């Protein structure tokens, strides 16, 4: 097991190194050249030369890449000339708020999706199964931003139950102080996740219910409830644990859209605003951070899968 984890971690580090290479290449693909992209098309040659020297762009490519890695190792993700702040600082300010939003949405999604999936598996091919299958099809086909807007229309504009915008604030505590504003963004993100999580839970549960040990348990006279909860559910939860780790990219993308819809001051909104103002250091820096999140999620999913299922030996 330790060997597997070490090997898997090493693989992740290699992928991470390659991701930094991609980011480095993209930086040099910026329209015109990096200096013009960041200083604007009317920048004076002298300014460009000073910028190139400052950023080390006048050095050989390998030196530059090494410098880039050196910066990353010291937590330097680049500098936003638009916001006049380091990307790492901007990220650190907003990261806890995004974690709050994504964490709440994931918890809500799991809490609903697991019982829903179990119910659908038990009532397989009955009316309610078809209904929720249809519903998850539709939710999955929804543009996330439109779902958010519809929720705003229903709950904020028509019924005045909830505020249409997310709370703004510098810290998580300030946001929690206006917790009602979080309901709609969390609901938007959770609905999309529930659509996929419940499908996996349903099929995982159907898989488990078809196993021989379930038949054995039935033959022994174990009650239906115990079979479902102790035998089938516990085994079906293994793939769910990995699913959460593997859904990091989807959840991050959802956060970008949801934060834009509700004007929630998280990392996703920072990213979108950077894209709209051609603030490339933020775009490149945050994409790299997102990639780290995805790689970590994958790594944890693989390890969780190995740890949780005693049948699996590496």
């Amino acid at each position: 097991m330790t060997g597997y984890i070490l090997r898997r971690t090493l693989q992740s580090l290699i992928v991470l190194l390659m991701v930094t290479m991609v980011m480095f290449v993209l930086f040099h693909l910026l329209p015109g050249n990096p200096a013009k992209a960041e200083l604007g098309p009317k920048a004076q040659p002298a300014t460009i030369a000073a910028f190139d020297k400052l950023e080390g762009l006048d050095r050989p490519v390998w030196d530059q890449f090494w410098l880039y890695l050196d910066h990353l190792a010291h937590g330097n993700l680049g500098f936003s000339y638009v916001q006049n702040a380091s990307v790492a600082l901007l990220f650190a300010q907003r990261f806890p708020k995004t974690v709050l939003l994504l964490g709440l949405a994931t918890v809500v999604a799991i809490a609903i999706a697991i019982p829903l999936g179990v119910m659908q598996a038990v009532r397989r091919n009955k009316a309610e199964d078809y209904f929720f299958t249809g519903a998850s099809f539709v939710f999955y086909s929804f543009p996330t931003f439109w779902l958010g807007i519809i929720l705003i229309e229903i709950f904020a504009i028509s019924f005045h139950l909830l505020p249409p915008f997310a709370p703004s604030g510098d810290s998580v505590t300030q946001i929690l102080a206006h917790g009602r504003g979080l309901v709609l963004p969390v609901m938007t993100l959770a609905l999309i996740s529930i659509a996929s999580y419940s499908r996996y839970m349903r099929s995982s549960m159907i898989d488990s219910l078809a196993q021989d040990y379930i038949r054995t348990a039935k033959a022994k006279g174990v009650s239906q409830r115990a079979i479902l909860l102790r035998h089938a559910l516990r085994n079906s939860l293994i793939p769910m644990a990995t699913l959460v780790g593997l859904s990091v990219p989807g959840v991050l993308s959802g956060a970008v859209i949801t934060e834009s819809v509700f004007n929630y001051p998280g990392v996703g909104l920072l990213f979108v605003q950077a894209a709209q103002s051609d603030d490339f250091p933020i775009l490149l820096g945050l994409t790299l951070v997102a990639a780290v999140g995805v790689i970590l999620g994958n790594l944890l999913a693989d390890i969780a899968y190995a740890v949780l299922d005693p049948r699996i030996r590496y």
Partner: protein
Amino acid sequence: MATGTSQPGEAVPAGPVPAVAGPAGAGRDLASLGPGPTSPELAEASGGPGPAGLYEAGEARSHGSVLRLSLQTFVENKLAIAGLAILVLLVLFCFVGPHLYVTNQKSLNPAISNYPPSSAHPLGTDGEGFDVLGRLMVAGQSSLEIGMAAGVAAAIWGTLYGAVSAVAGGVIDAVMMRIVDTLYSLPTLFLLILLSAIFAPNLPLMIIVLTFVAWLGPARLVRGEALSLRTREYVEAVKVAGGTRSRIVVRHIVPNAIGTIMVNTSFLIADAILALAALSYLGLGLPDTTPTWGGMLSNGTTVIFDGYWWQLYPAGVAIVLTVVAFNFIGDALRDSLDVRLQRR
């Protein structure tokens, strides 16, 4: 192998997450959730028995019989028929509709902006005085064209990439798949936004950008499929007979993986249409001179507080219908082609 010591005959989930006949979403997720990066063993496992099991012996059947088989399984499936019917209606609506319902979609007409639905304008007009029903047709043309072009291009490129990688094997395979792993670590929307910000796409460039983020899924799927196919006797036989690698890829691997590819393509198109809509919403889509459903929908979101609902819902419904249709088709195809699922 990921499946470790499970009993023979036991239904073993392929990869960390079981392969599901789920909505479509599942399809999308198999692409992104599938085997984690840098675990070729898992990728191999997820190839699974797949459609290849349908015609195990000998050379891949002639193209005609693959088509006939697909057609037959397709017709048997109600979901597929429903999806196809929706799609045909949408295509007729978008491409034939403008000839029957002629509207001015070229010049602004502020005098009639934001009119509610009436007999003259069944779906009202938008903020620039364009007839919404007419615009829905024109915008649908570009949305469908871009989605299908990107989906098909990604499927073709991904298929060739995956098949070549599997057949080449060794170091080439390792390097090619690490490239896929690397790009896979970048969340799709982040990459899309980044590329759109860098390249400010026009229509052809938008197709390329959407293709670039979509080909990774099919590349992994086809490689997984190809890894199991390349050890079959008939591929061995081609090698012994002196067949070239390109012959193995084009004549044997690709035709046998065609089921997987078709299923995946239909999900890819659905995803591309959604991705285009998301980009439009974030202000990184195509300019309004090329109307798209996503563009209409995102313009509609700016007037919800004014109560102009007719500018918001038609385009949204069109997108959802299209995506549901492609997901139905893909899902139904997978159900009929996957022998594992038929047994249950």
